[in-house]
Protein backbone atom coordinates (compact mmCIF):
# COMPACT_ATOMS: atom_id res chain seq x y z
CA UNK A 1 0.00 0.00 0.00
CA UNK A 2 1.37 3.38 -1.05
CA UNK A 3 0.06 6.71 0.18
CA UNK A 4 0.97 9.80 -1.83
CA UNK A 5 0.01 13.37 -0.95
CA UNK A 6 -0.06 15.88 -3.80
CA UNK A 7 -0.04 19.51 -2.60
CA UNK A 8 0.35 22.92 -4.17
CA UNK A 9 -1.42 25.99 -5.40
CA UNK A 10 -4.78 25.88 -7.17
CA UNK A 11 -4.18 25.91 -10.92
CA UNK A 12 -0.93 23.93 -10.81
CA UNK A 13 -2.72 20.75 -11.85
CA UNK A 14 -2.13 19.07 -8.50
CA UNK A 15 -5.45 17.20 -8.45
CA UNK A 16 -4.84 15.98 -12.00
CA UNK A 17 -1.38 14.71 -11.06
CA UNK A 18 -2.94 12.61 -8.33
CA UNK A 19 -5.67 11.36 -10.61
CA UNK A 20 -3.17 10.29 -13.27
CA UNK A 21 -1.16 8.29 -10.73
CA UNK A 22 -4.33 6.62 -9.40
CA UNK A 23 -5.51 5.78 -12.91
CA UNK A 24 -2.12 4.30 -13.79
CA UNK A 25 -2.41 2.10 -10.68
CA UNK A 26 -5.93 1.04 -11.71
CA UNK A 27 -4.71 0.21 -15.21
CA UNK A 28 -2.28 -2.19 -13.50
CA UNK A 29 -5.25 -3.88 -11.78
CA UNK A 30 -4.33 -2.44 -8.39
CA UNK A 31 -6.89 -1.06 -5.95
CA UNK A 32 -6.73 2.73 -5.80
CA UNK A 33 -8.46 5.72 -4.25
CA UNK A 34 -8.18 9.46 -4.87
CA UNK A 35 -9.55 11.92 -2.36
CA UNK A 36 -9.29 15.69 -2.58
CA UNK A 37 -9.06 18.15 0.23
CA UNK A 38 -12.39 19.91 0.05
CA UNK A 39 -14.54 22.18 2.11
CA UNK A 40 -13.76 25.65 3.37
CA UNK A 41 -10.05 24.93 3.29
CA UNK A 42 -10.03 24.61 -0.49
CA UNK A 43 -10.86 28.31 -0.84
CA UNK A 44 -7.83 30.58 -0.81
CA UNK A 45 -5.75 28.90 -3.44
CA UNK A 46 -4.23 25.77 -1.92
CA UNK A 47 -5.10 22.37 -3.28
CA UNK A 48 -4.19 18.86 -2.28
CA UNK A 49 -5.26 15.28 -2.76
CA UNK A 50 -4.31 11.93 -1.35
CA UNK A 51 -3.86 8.88 -3.55
CA UNK A 52 -3.54 5.37 -2.18
CA UNK A 53 -2.97 2.20 -4.17
CA UNK A 54 -1.91 -1.39 -3.63
CA UNK A 55 -2.87 -5.02 -3.90
CA UNK A 56 -5.22 -5.09 -0.93
CA UNK A 57 -8.34 -3.00 -0.41
CA UNK A 58 -7.67 0.62 0.49
CA UNK A 59 -9.25 0.94 3.91
CA UNK A 60 -9.02 4.58 4.94
CA UNK A 61 -8.94 6.54 1.65
CA UNK A 62 -8.15 9.78 3.50
CA UNK A 63 -4.79 11.09 4.61
CA UNK A 64 -3.04 8.91 7.18
CA UNK A 65 0.75 9.00 6.80
CA UNK A 66 2.03 9.68 3.28
CA UNK A 67 4.95 7.64 1.95
CA UNK A 68 5.53 10.31 -0.69
CA UNK A 69 4.74 14.02 -0.58
CA UNK A 70 4.72 16.21 -3.69
CA UNK A 71 5.04 19.85 -2.64
CA UNK A 72 4.67 22.44 -5.38
CA UNK A 73 5.02 25.56 -3.19
CA UNK A 74 6.41 26.70 0.19
CA UNK A 75 3.17 26.49 2.23
CA UNK A 76 2.55 22.93 1.02
CA UNK A 77 6.04 21.83 2.03
CA UNK A 78 5.83 23.51 5.41
CA UNK A 79 2.34 22.26 6.18
CA UNK A 80 2.81 18.63 5.24
CA UNK A 81 6.50 17.71 5.65
CA UNK A 82 5.90 16.74 9.28
CA UNK A 83 3.27 14.15 8.32
CA UNK A 84 5.47 12.14 5.98
CA UNK A 85 6.19 8.58 7.15
CA UNK A 86 9.71 7.97 8.46
CA UNK A 87 11.85 6.81 5.56
CA UNK A 88 9.48 8.56 3.13
CA UNK A 89 10.25 10.81 0.20
CA UNK A 90 9.39 14.44 -0.45
CA UNK A 91 9.46 15.65 -4.06
CA UNK A 92 9.57 19.43 -4.38
CA UNK A 93 9.45 21.81 -7.30
CA UNK A 94 12.85 23.36 -6.63
CA UNK A 95 11.99 26.37 -8.79
CA UNK A 96 9.13 27.24 -6.41
CA UNK A 97 9.95 25.74 -3.02
CA UNK A 98 12.54 28.19 -1.73
CA UNK A 99 12.26 27.63 2.01
CA UNK A 100 14.67 25.53 4.04
CA UNK A 101 13.92 21.92 3.11
CA UNK A 102 16.57 20.38 5.35
CA UNK A 103 14.17 19.90 8.25
CA UNK A 104 14.04 16.13 8.80
CA UNK A 105 16.84 13.58 8.72
CA UNK A 106 14.60 10.53 8.32
CA UNK A 107 13.21 11.49 4.91
CA UNK A 108 14.65 12.01 1.43
CA UNK A 109 14.02 15.31 -0.36
CA UNK A 110 14.23 15.34 -4.15
CA UNK A 111 14.32 18.73 -5.84
CA UNK A 112 13.01 18.88 -9.42
CA UNK A 113 12.79 22.26 -11.20
CA UNK A 114 9.66 21.10 -12.98
CA UNK A 115 8.26 24.56 -13.72
CA UNK A 116 11.48 25.61 -15.47
CA UNK A 117 11.76 22.26 -17.25
CA UNK A 118 8.19 22.64 -18.51
CA UNK A 119 8.88 26.08 -19.94
CA UNK A 120 12.09 24.81 -21.56
CA UNK A 121 10.28 21.97 -23.29
CA UNK A 122 7.64 24.41 -24.57
CA UNK A 123 4.78 22.97 -22.48
CA UNK A 124 4.51 25.49 -19.66
CA UNK A 125 1.44 23.80 -18.20
CA UNK A 126 3.18 20.42 -18.12
CA UNK A 127 5.04 20.76 -14.81
CA UNK A 128 2.44 18.58 -13.10
CA UNK A 129 2.93 15.83 -15.69
CA UNK A 130 6.72 16.00 -15.27
CA UNK A 131 6.06 15.44 -11.56
CA UNK A 132 3.78 12.51 -12.36
CA UNK A 133 6.77 10.95 -14.09
CA UNK A 134 9.01 11.62 -11.08
CA UNK A 135 6.45 10.19 -8.62
CA UNK A 136 5.85 7.13 -10.83
CA UNK A 137 9.55 6.38 -10.68
CA UNK A 138 9.98 7.19 -6.96
CA UNK A 139 7.02 4.94 -6.05
CA UNK A 140 8.94 1.95 -7.39
CA UNK A 141 5.68 0.33 -8.48
CA UNK A 142 5.25 1.76 -11.97
CA UNK A 143 7.39 1.17 -15.07
CA UNK A 144 7.86 3.97 -17.61
CA UNK A 145 5.72 2.12 -20.17
CA UNK A 146 2.90 1.42 -17.72
CA UNK A 147 2.91 5.04 -16.68
CA UNK A 148 2.75 6.45 -20.18
CA UNK A 149 0.07 4.08 -21.40
CA UNK A 150 -2.08 4.52 -18.28
CA UNK A 151 -1.80 8.30 -18.47
CA UNK A 152 -2.51 8.60 -22.17
CA UNK A 153 -5.47 6.24 -21.95
CA UNK A 154 -6.99 8.37 -19.22
CA UNK A 155 -6.71 11.60 -21.22
CA UNK A 156 -7.97 9.86 -24.34
CA UNK A 157 -11.12 8.76 -22.53
CA UNK A 158 -11.65 12.32 -21.34
CA UNK A 159 -11.38 13.52 -24.96
CA UNK A 160 -8.13 15.34 -24.21
CA UNK A 161 -5.73 13.40 -26.39
CA UNK A 162 -4.41 16.45 -28.26
CA UNK A 163 -1.67 16.93 -25.62
CA UNK A 164 -0.62 13.28 -25.83
CA UNK A 165 2.75 13.92 -27.45
CA UNK A 166 3.67 16.69 -25.04
CA UNK A 167 2.40 14.73 -22.04
CA UNK A 168 4.44 11.70 -23.06
CA UNK A 169 7.53 13.86 -23.39
CA UNK A 170 6.90 15.52 -20.02
CA UNK A 171 6.31 12.17 -18.30
CA UNK A 172 9.57 10.76 -19.71
CA UNK A 173 11.47 13.86 -18.63
CA UNK A 174 10.22 13.40 -15.09
CA UNK A 175 10.58 9.62 -14.98
CA UNK A 176 14.23 9.84 -16.08
CA UNK A 177 15.14 12.89 -14.02
CA UNK A 178 18.58 12.45 -12.47
CA UNK A 179 18.96 13.85 -9.00
Amino acid at each position, binding site marked *: MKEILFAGLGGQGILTSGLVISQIAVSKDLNAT*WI*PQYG*AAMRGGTANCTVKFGNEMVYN*PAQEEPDILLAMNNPSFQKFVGMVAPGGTVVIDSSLVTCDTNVREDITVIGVPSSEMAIEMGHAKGANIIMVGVIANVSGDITEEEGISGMNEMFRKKGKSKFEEMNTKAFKLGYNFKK
Partner: protein
Amino acid sequence: MEDMIKGNHAFAEAAIRAGATFYAGYPITPSSEIMEYLSVRLPEIGGVFIQAESEGASMNILTGASASGVRCFTASSSVGMTLKQEGISHMADSYLPFLAINVVRYGTGLGTLDTGQSDYLRDTRGGGSGDYRTFVLSPYSLQEAVELIDRGFELADKYGMGTILHTEAALGQMMEPCTFPEMKKVERRHGSIDGTYSFERISPLYRDRLKEAIDEKAKYDSIKENEQMWAEESLEDAEYVIVAYGLAGRSATGAVKQLRAEGHKVGLIRPITLWPFPEKAFAKVNKDVKGFISVEENATGQMVEDIALTLKKSDKSSKPVYMFVDAFGVPTMKKIKANFIRVKNGEIKEVY
Protein backbone atom coordinates in the same frame (compact mmCIF):
# COMPACT_ATOMS: atom_id res chain seq x y z
CA MET B 1 -10.55 -2.98 -13.97
CA GLU B 2 -12.97 -0.07 -14.37
CA ASP B 3 -11.83 3.55 -14.46
CA MET B 4 -11.69 5.92 -11.53
CA ILE B 5 -15.05 7.64 -11.01
CA LYS B 6 -16.10 10.36 -8.59
CA GLY B 7 -18.46 9.28 -5.82
CA ASN B 8 -21.24 11.73 -6.65
CA HIS B 9 -21.14 10.68 -10.32
CA ALA B 10 -21.24 7.02 -9.30
CA PHE B 11 -24.33 7.62 -7.11
CA ALA B 12 -26.11 9.34 -9.99
CA GLU B 13 -25.24 6.62 -12.52
CA ALA B 14 -26.22 3.90 -10.06
CA ALA B 15 -29.71 5.42 -9.75
CA ILE B 16 -30.05 5.53 -13.53
CA ARG B 17 -28.99 1.88 -13.78
CA ALA B 18 -31.56 1.02 -11.08
CA GLY B 19 -34.30 2.29 -13.37
CA ALA B 20 -34.87 5.76 -11.95
CA THR B 21 -36.10 8.19 -14.60
CA PHE B 22 -37.01 11.27 -12.55
CA TYR B 23 -34.85 13.65 -10.50
CA ALA B 24 -35.62 16.95 -8.84
CA GLY B 25 -33.08 18.76 -6.68
CA TYR B 26 -31.35 21.96 -5.67
CA PRO B 27 -27.59 22.67 -5.74
CA ILE B 28 -25.61 22.31 -2.50
CA THR B 29 -22.00 21.49 -1.71
CA PRO B 30 -20.77 18.74 -1.51
CA SER B 31 -23.44 16.88 -3.50
CA SER B 32 -24.03 19.17 -6.50
CA GLU B 33 -22.07 16.94 -8.89
CA ILE B 34 -24.96 14.47 -8.65
CA MET B 35 -27.37 16.91 -10.31
CA GLU B 36 -24.74 18.23 -12.69
CA TYR B 37 -24.25 14.70 -13.97
CA LEU B 38 -27.98 14.05 -14.20
CA SER B 39 -28.68 17.29 -16.09
CA VAL B 40 -27.01 15.56 -19.04
CA ARG B 41 -27.62 11.88 -18.28
CA LEU B 42 -31.39 11.89 -17.62
CA PRO B 43 -32.38 13.60 -20.90
CA GLU B 44 -30.17 11.03 -22.68
CA ILE B 45 -32.41 8.20 -21.46
CA GLY B 46 -35.67 10.10 -21.93
CA GLY B 47 -36.01 10.83 -18.21
CA VAL B 48 -36.95 14.03 -16.42
CA PHE B 49 -34.44 16.34 -14.72
CA ILE B 50 -35.75 19.36 -12.82
CA GLN B 51 -33.60 21.96 -11.09
CA ALA B 52 -36.16 23.14 -8.54
CA GLU B 53 -36.44 26.54 -6.89
CA SER B 54 -35.73 25.10 -3.46
CA GLU B 55 -34.91 21.90 -1.60
CA GLY B 56 -38.48 21.80 -0.31
CA ALA B 57 -40.01 22.24 -3.74
CA SER B 58 -37.81 19.49 -5.16
CA MET B 59 -39.31 17.08 -2.62
CA ASN B 60 -42.85 18.17 -3.52
CA ILE B 61 -42.12 17.78 -7.22
CA LEU B 62 -40.89 14.29 -6.37
CA THR B 63 -44.21 13.73 -4.57
CA GLY B 64 -46.09 14.21 -7.85
CA ALA B 65 -43.68 11.91 -9.66
CA SER B 66 -43.85 9.17 -7.05
CA ALA B 67 -47.66 9.42 -6.85
CA SER B 68 -47.55 8.90 -10.62
CA GLY B 69 -45.71 5.63 -9.95
CA VAL B 70 -42.40 6.72 -11.44
CA ARG B 71 -39.07 5.66 -9.86
CA CYS B 72 -37.70 8.98 -8.64
CA PHE B 73 -34.94 10.39 -6.47
CA THR B 74 -33.27 13.49 -5.13
CA ALA B 75 -29.98 14.35 -3.45
CA SER B 76 -28.72 16.95 -1.05
CA SER B 77 -26.50 17.55 1.95
CA SER B 78 -27.40 17.91 5.63
CA VAL B 79 -28.99 21.38 5.89
CA GLY B 80 -30.58 20.84 2.48
CA MET B 81 -32.06 17.59 3.79
CA THR B 82 -33.50 19.57 6.70
CA LEU B 83 -35.48 21.61 4.19
CA LYS B 84 -36.74 18.43 2.51
CA GLN B 85 -38.20 17.00 5.72
CA GLU B 86 -41.62 18.53 5.10
CA GLY B 87 -41.90 16.62 1.84
CA ILE B 88 -40.32 13.46 3.26
CA SER B 89 -42.94 13.41 6.02
CA HIS B 90 -45.77 14.02 3.55
CA MET B 91 -44.51 11.27 1.24
CA ALA B 92 -44.29 8.92 4.24
CA ASP B 93 -47.91 9.77 5.08
CA SER B 94 -48.91 9.03 1.48
CA TYR B 95 -46.88 5.76 1.33
CA LEU B 96 -44.87 7.12 -1.60
CA PRO B 97 -41.48 5.53 -2.31
CA PHE B 98 -38.44 7.67 -3.10
CA LEU B 99 -34.68 7.66 -2.72
CA ALA B 100 -32.89 10.66 -1.21
CA ILE B 101 -29.11 10.74 -1.21
CA ASN B 102 -27.73 12.66 1.77
CA VAL B 103 -24.05 13.49 1.20
CA VAL B 104 -23.51 14.64 4.78
CA ARG B 105 -21.46 17.72 5.54
CA TYR B 106 -20.51 18.18 9.16
CA GLY B 107 -22.35 20.63 11.33
CA THR B 108 -25.42 22.22 12.80
CA GLY B 109 -27.55 24.77 10.95
CA LEU B 110 -25.70 25.88 7.86
CA GLY B 111 -22.88 23.61 9.01
CA THR B 112 -19.53 23.31 7.27
CA LEU B 113 -18.38 21.93 3.94
CA ASP B 114 -16.28 19.26 5.63
CA THR B 115 -17.16 15.60 5.76
CA GLY B 116 -18.90 14.14 8.79
CA GLN B 117 -21.58 11.91 10.28
CA SER B 118 -23.67 14.50 12.08
CA ASP B 119 -27.11 13.59 10.68
CA TYR B 120 -27.37 10.06 12.11
CA LEU B 121 -30.09 10.81 14.65
CA ARG B 122 -32.13 13.03 12.31
CA ASP B 123 -32.12 10.56 9.44
CA THR B 124 -32.75 7.40 11.48
CA ARG B 125 -35.63 8.94 13.44
CA GLY B 126 -37.68 10.06 10.46
CA GLY B 127 -36.71 13.73 10.52
CA GLY B 128 -40.00 15.48 9.84
CA SER B 129 -43.19 15.72 11.84
CA GLY B 130 -45.02 12.52 12.60
CA ASP B 131 -44.75 8.86 13.39
CA TYR B 132 -42.70 7.32 10.61
CA ARG B 133 -39.30 5.96 9.61
CA THR B 134 -37.36 5.75 6.38
CA PHE B 135 -34.82 3.16 5.37
CA VAL B 136 -31.34 4.54 6.02
CA LEU B 137 -28.54 2.79 4.13
CA SER B 138 -24.89 3.70 4.49
CA PRO B 139 -22.18 2.56 2.06
CA TYR B 140 -18.46 2.31 2.81
CA SER B 141 -17.27 2.24 -0.80
CA LEU B 142 -18.52 3.38 -4.18
CA GLN B 143 -19.17 -0.24 -5.16
CA GLU B 144 -21.33 -0.74 -2.10
CA ALA B 145 -23.11 2.57 -2.82
CA VAL B 146 -23.99 1.35 -6.31
CA GLU B 147 -25.48 -1.83 -4.84
CA LEU B 148 -27.32 -0.05 -2.02
CA ILE B 149 -28.91 2.50 -4.36
CA ASP B 150 -30.54 -0.34 -6.30
CA ARG B 151 -31.50 -2.09 -3.07
CA GLY B 152 -32.81 1.19 -1.65
CA PHE B 153 -35.22 1.69 -4.54
CA GLU B 154 -36.44 -1.90 -4.24
CA LEU B 155 -37.03 -1.59 -0.49
CA ALA B 156 -38.82 1.72 -0.97
CA ASP B 157 -41.17 0.17 -3.53
CA LYS B 158 -41.71 -3.01 -1.53
CA TYR B 159 -42.75 -1.23 1.65
CA GLY B 160 -44.15 2.02 0.23
CA MET B 161 -41.70 4.26 2.05
CA GLY B 162 -38.64 6.40 1.51
CA THR B 163 -35.01 5.37 1.51
CA ILE B 164 -32.16 7.66 2.47
CA LEU B 165 -28.73 6.76 1.18
CA HIS B 166 -26.83 8.25 4.08
CA THR B 167 -23.29 8.92 2.95
CA GLU B 168 -20.68 11.58 3.63
CA ALA B 169 -18.82 14.34 1.82
CA ALA B 170 -15.63 12.31 1.66
CA LEU B 171 -17.31 9.44 -0.23
CA GLY B 172 -19.13 11.82 -2.56
CA GLN B 173 -15.92 13.65 -3.40
CA MET B 174 -13.49 10.73 -3.59
CA MET B 175 -12.75 8.57 -6.62
CA GLU B 176 -12.22 4.85 -7.00
CA PRO B 177 -13.20 2.29 -9.61
CA CYS B 178 -16.55 0.53 -9.45
CA THR B 179 -18.67 -1.55 -11.79
CA PHE B 180 -22.27 -0.80 -12.67
CA PRO B 181 -25.05 -3.28 -13.40
CA GLU B 182 -26.92 -3.26 -16.72
CA MET B 183 -29.75 -0.74 -17.12
CA LYS B 184 -32.90 -1.91 -15.39
CA LYS B 185 -36.33 -1.15 -16.84
CA VAL B 186 -38.91 -0.38 -14.17
CA GLU B 187 -42.64 -0.13 -14.96
CA ARG B 188 -44.85 2.48 -13.31
CA ARG B 189 -46.14 1.18 -9.99
CA HIS B 190 -49.52 -0.54 -9.98
CA GLY B 191 -52.31 1.67 -8.67
CA SER B 192 -50.53 4.95 -9.23
CA ILE B 193 -52.17 8.19 -10.36
CA ASP B 194 -52.30 8.49 -14.14
CA GLY B 195 -55.49 10.50 -14.72
CA THR B 196 -57.69 7.50 -15.55
CA TYR B 197 -59.14 7.14 -12.04
CA SER B 198 -58.78 3.37 -12.24
CA PHE B 199 -58.40 3.16 -8.47
CA GLU B 200 -60.39 4.78 -5.72
CA ARG B 201 -58.57 7.65 -3.98
CA ILE B 202 -59.48 8.14 -0.35
CA SER B 203 -59.29 11.74 0.76
CA PRO B 204 -57.05 12.39 3.78
CA LEU B 205 -60.18 13.49 5.65
CA TYR B 206 -61.71 10.02 5.33
CA ARG B 207 -58.71 7.82 6.04
CA ASP B 208 -58.83 5.52 9.06
CA ARG B 209 -55.75 6.95 10.74
CA LEU B 210 -55.85 4.71 13.78
CA LYS B 211 -55.95 1.53 11.72
CA GLU B 212 -53.17 2.88 9.50
CA ALA B 213 -50.99 3.66 12.52
CA ILE B 214 -51.37 0.09 13.81
CA ASP B 215 -50.59 -1.27 10.33
CA GLU B 216 -47.49 0.94 10.17
CA LYS B 217 -46.24 -0.43 13.47
CA ALA B 218 -46.64 -3.98 12.14
CA LYS B 219 -44.85 -3.01 8.94
CA TYR B 220 -41.92 -1.49 10.82
CA ASP B 221 -41.68 -4.56 13.05
CA SER B 222 -41.53 -6.75 9.96
CA ILE B 223 -38.81 -4.54 8.47
CA LYS B 224 -36.78 -4.70 11.68
CA GLU B 225 -37.06 -8.49 11.58
CA ASN B 226 -36.24 -8.97 7.92
CA GLU B 227 -34.20 -6.13 6.47
CA GLN B 228 -31.20 -5.60 8.76
CA MET B 229 -27.86 -5.41 6.91
CA TRP B 230 -24.37 -5.24 8.31
CA ALA B 231 -20.80 -6.45 7.85
CA GLU B 232 -18.85 -8.08 10.67
CA GLU B 233 -15.39 -9.27 11.64
CA SER B 234 -14.39 -11.73 14.36
CA LEU B 235 -17.34 -11.45 16.75
CA GLU B 236 -17.00 -15.00 18.13
CA ASP B 237 -13.98 -14.33 20.34
CA ALA B 238 -13.84 -10.52 20.45
CA GLU B 239 -13.03 -8.90 23.78
CA TYR B 240 -13.98 -5.55 22.32
CA VAL B 241 -16.20 -4.79 19.35
CA ILE B 242 -15.76 -1.60 17.33
CA VAL B 243 -18.98 -0.30 15.73
CA ALA B 244 -18.67 2.15 12.83
CA TYR B 245 -20.44 2.87 9.53
CA GLY B 246 -19.65 4.58 6.24
CA LEU B 247 -16.03 5.62 5.73
CA ALA B 248 -15.42 5.47 9.49
CA GLY B 249 -16.50 1.84 9.15
CA ARG B 250 -14.09 1.34 6.26
CA SER B 251 -11.20 2.81 8.23
CA ALA B 252 -12.24 0.72 11.25
CA THR B 253 -12.24 -2.42 9.08
CA GLY B 254 -8.58 -1.76 8.29
CA ALA B 255 -7.79 -0.92 11.92
CA VAL B 256 -9.42 -4.15 13.16
CA LYS B 257 -7.45 -6.23 10.65
CA GLN B 258 -4.20 -4.62 11.81
CA LEU B 259 -5.09 -4.99 15.50
CA ARG B 260 -5.92 -8.66 14.95
CA ALA B 261 -2.57 -9.15 13.22
CA GLU B 262 -0.96 -7.54 16.27
CA GLY B 263 -2.68 -10.09 18.53
CA HIS B 264 -5.61 -8.06 19.91
CA LYS B 265 -8.97 -9.81 20.22
CA VAL B 266 -11.08 -7.15 18.61
CA GLY B 267 -14.16 -7.47 16.43
CA LEU B 268 -16.16 -5.17 14.16
CA ILE B 269 -19.80 -4.48 13.41
CA ARG B 270 -20.29 -2.19 10.42
CA PRO B 271 -23.99 -1.26 10.18
CA ILE B 272 -25.16 -0.99 6.56
CA THR B 273 -28.79 -0.35 7.45
CA LEU B 274 -28.68 2.44 10.05
CA TRP B 275 -32.46 2.02 10.19
CA PRO B 276 -33.38 -0.70 10.84
CA PHE B 277 -30.36 -0.84 13.17
CA PRO B 278 -28.61 -4.22 12.84
CA GLU B 279 -29.53 -5.53 16.28
CA LYS B 280 -29.02 -9.10 15.13
CA ALA B 281 -25.29 -8.47 14.70
CA PHE B 282 -25.01 -7.70 18.41
CA ALA B 283 -26.72 -10.99 19.26
CA LYS B 284 -23.86 -12.77 17.49
CA VAL B 285 -21.21 -11.24 19.75
CA ASN B 286 -19.86 -13.67 22.36
CA LYS B 287 -21.26 -13.14 25.86
CA ASP B 288 -17.83 -12.61 27.41
CA VAL B 289 -17.19 -9.45 25.40
CA LYS B 290 -15.78 -6.67 27.58
CA GLY B 291 -17.20 -3.67 25.78
CA PHE B 292 -18.28 -1.91 22.58
CA ILE B 293 -16.66 1.15 21.00
CA SER B 294 -18.64 3.47 18.73
CA VAL B 295 -16.44 5.28 16.21
CA GLU B 296 -18.20 8.26 14.63
CA GLU B 297 -17.38 11.31 12.51
CA ASN B 298 -19.02 13.84 14.81
CA ALA B 299 -18.37 15.54 18.13
CA THR B 300 -21.24 14.50 20.39
CA GLY B 301 -21.81 10.84 19.55
CA GLN B 302 -25.08 9.79 17.95
CA MET B 303 -25.05 6.11 16.94
CA VAL B 304 -23.67 5.32 20.41
CA GLU B 305 -27.25 5.71 21.67
CA ASP B 306 -28.53 2.96 19.38
CA ILE B 307 -25.72 0.65 20.47
CA ALA B 308 -26.66 1.17 24.13
CA LEU B 309 -30.36 0.67 23.42
CA THR B 310 -29.65 -2.49 21.44
CA LEU B 311 -27.55 -3.96 24.25
CA LYS B 312 -30.23 -3.13 26.81
CA LYS B 313 -32.56 -5.78 25.46
CA SER B 314 -29.81 -8.38 24.90
CA ASP B 315 -27.81 -10.65 27.18
CA LYS B 316 -25.09 -7.96 27.17
CA SER B 317 -27.06 -5.21 28.88
CA SER B 318 -24.35 -4.66 31.49
CA LYS B 319 -21.51 -4.25 28.98
CA PRO B 320 -20.00 -0.76 28.75
CA VAL B 321 -20.26 1.30 25.57
CA TYR B 322 -17.38 3.65 24.77
CA MET B 323 -17.08 6.14 22.00
CA PHE B 324 -14.35 7.68 19.91
CA VAL B 325 -15.60 10.68 17.99
CA ASP B 326 -13.63 12.54 15.36
CA ALA B 327 -15.47 15.45 13.76
CA PHE B 328 -14.29 17.00 10.49
CA GLY B 329 -12.76 13.94 8.92
CA VAL B 330 -12.54 10.23 8.38
CA PRO B 331 -10.91 8.83 11.55
CA THR B 332 -7.55 7.38 10.63
CA MET B 333 -6.72 3.75 11.30
CA LYS B 334 -3.88 5.03 13.48
CA LYS B 335 -6.28 7.00 15.72
CA ILE B 336 -8.82 4.18 15.90
CA LYS B 337 -6.09 1.80 16.99
CA ALA B 338 -4.70 4.25 19.56
CA ASN B 339 -8.15 4.81 21.05
CA PHE B 340 -8.81 1.09 21.17
CA ILE B 341 -5.63 0.68 23.22
CA ARG B 342 -6.75 3.49 25.52
CA VAL B 343 -10.11 1.79 26.07
CA LYS B 344 -8.36 -1.51 26.73
CA ASN B 345 -6.05 0.18 29.25
CA GLY B 346 -8.99 1.73 31.08
CA GLU B 347 -8.03 5.29 30.11
CA ILE B 348 -11.42 6.15 28.57
CA LYS B 349 -14.66 6.22 30.56
CA GLU B 350 -17.70 4.53 29.08
CA VAL B 351 -20.63 6.64 27.80
CA TYR B 352 -23.27 4.06 28.75
